[in-house]
């Protein structure tokens, strides 16, 4: 059991990070903190993906003299896919910040319970 925990430590780290982000999205009351929780959630997923491409003894996926077999390089396809995911993450944060500005302009606060009280 213990070596199951230790040998796959990277997956446990990403699970913890993902759950931290998820808790922040659900449990916190300030809208800005929810947004940061969403960012942490997406970052954890990106890290998880990249870690699946690692090989034992592999090096950076940049062409070098002297390393010609495919087994010498870390798998570059997850890196490319995660570039796209990072762009999506940044765009979502941009849109969410703009929406938060609109909310602040309307309700003068970013706390969820105060906003709900002012609606009722």
């Amino acid at each position, binding site marked *: 059991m213990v070596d199951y925990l230790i040998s796959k430590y990277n997956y446990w780290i990403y699970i913890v990070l993902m759950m931290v982000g*998820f808790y922040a*999205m659900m449990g916190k009351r300030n*809208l800005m903190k*929810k947004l940061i929780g*969403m960012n942490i*959630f*997406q970052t954890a*997923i990106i890290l*998880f*993906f990249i870690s*699946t491409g690692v090989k034992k003894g592999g090096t950076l996926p940049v062409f070098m003299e002297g390393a010609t077999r495919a087994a010498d390089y870390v798998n570059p*396809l*997850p890196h490319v*896919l995660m570039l*796209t*995911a990072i762009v*999506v993450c940044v*765009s*979502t944060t941009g*849109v*969410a910040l*703009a*929406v*938060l500005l*609109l*909310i602040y302009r*309307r309700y003068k606060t970013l706390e969820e319970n105060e*906003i709900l009280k002012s*609606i009722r």
Partner: protein
Amino acid sequence: MNTLQTQAVILVVLIPLMSSYAIPLIGWRWKGSAYFIALMAIGASLICSLILLSSVLTQGTIHYHLGGWLPPWGIEYVIDPLNGFMGAVVCILSFLVTFSSRESVQKELPEKKVRFYTIYLLLFTGLMGIVVTGDVFNLYVFLEITSLTAYALIAIGEDGAPLASFKYIIMGTIGACFYLLGVGYLYIVTGSLNIADLAQLLPPLYQSKVVLTAMGFFVIGLSIKTGLFPMHIWLPDAYTCAPSAVSAFIAPLMTKVGCYVMIRIMFTVFKPYFSIELIPVTTILSWMAAVAMIVGSIFAIVQSDLKRMLSYSIVAQIGYIVLGVGLANRAGLTGSLLHILNEAFTIGCLFSVAGAIVYKLGTSNIYQFNNLSKKMPLTMAAFLMGAFSMVGIPPTCGFFSKLYLIFGSIAAKQWVFVAVLLISTLLNVIYFFKVIEIAYFKPRELATEKEKEILKVVYANGGSYEEIAREATPIRMNEVPLSMLIPILIMAAGILISGIFYFKIIAKVIQFAIPSGI
């Protein structure tokens, strides 16, 4: 040799994409041109998608390799009958709704027109991209384009729209991240991202836990995007508070494209026997759909705002479509696909009518709809047609899709679903006929002092209530402008035509669109 026919697959996505960058440049100088560029781009996509549908029905599946790279090393766009059908539905409906959007955008958002149409065209590009692509990661990119532009468009409404949009952002991002996790798991075990390739590589691996987890992530993530109960919480607020042109565009299309992605993942990437027998995903989905049908209708009965009532009705209708997917026999999927076509026209018509009523009256509170049948007769006739289709009265299309769903439930020997279908039809009747009663049969109550004077005089001379109501203020016909009225009437006619010719549609298109193996 490049002809329109060979390149129509990419033009369907490329023309709206390039037009959406052209709108800020041209619209800086001529502000009124944004609407026309958007309309022309969607029209060009419509022509391309009709060409695609006709060629896929005659020649079989079309493959298009982006960049000249063969799959599985390159991205591939695949059109089979299911794709072609969805693409045609999305394009036709987008064209009609965009045609009617000019007046309402001019009234509600006059100074933001250019940027509005930019984001609007990007939303359309995303929808067409989801429909056309044959690569799971490319689908994620287009899914996020669709979602991001929808968040931005919904947030510019009034009265609580930014908060509704923020709720939608949080929930939609969770859904998309779960979809991304599913794609990642499939990539880890197979090394491929192409749908056809995955369908070949996965069957030996069906017992591994990674594939089971991937299926779980896909189903949950896509249920959030589709708005299936109990992940529908973002839906009513988002569709109510959005501007009228945006609701009429997003409501019929986005959730149905989510259902299409669900069909694609469950029956094309994974073979049907995996989704039906190995893990009972279809059983779970059909039970959630049954609850969605009842809950959506019950919530819709108590609403007093027309758009909110229609949003809860959408929750129920998504239940119908996912029930068809969950039954997973030929009749069930036929009913499901026919219901997608029905929903596109019906919900487009109903939300456009709601937009027209907001344009004229300024409010969408149901209890102020008195005498609408005299002020806006054609619009309310279209509403009547839409209501009949939602309830399921022949010969509108809604009756035939529900009939096929009932046949599917009987074939699968699930009598509970037959009962649920009939009960929810009755519940639909309640809330739609409430609106029809107020609009058609309840004359306006007299309120002002002058009118009460006239009331006393005429009553003393023996007049009836209807005469008094007519005499106090003559009610003149005050219809919406033609550019809003014509698409509403075309959509209402579409409901009727697709109902009368339902058998031809099923025999020519839908029969081939059902994924193989069912």
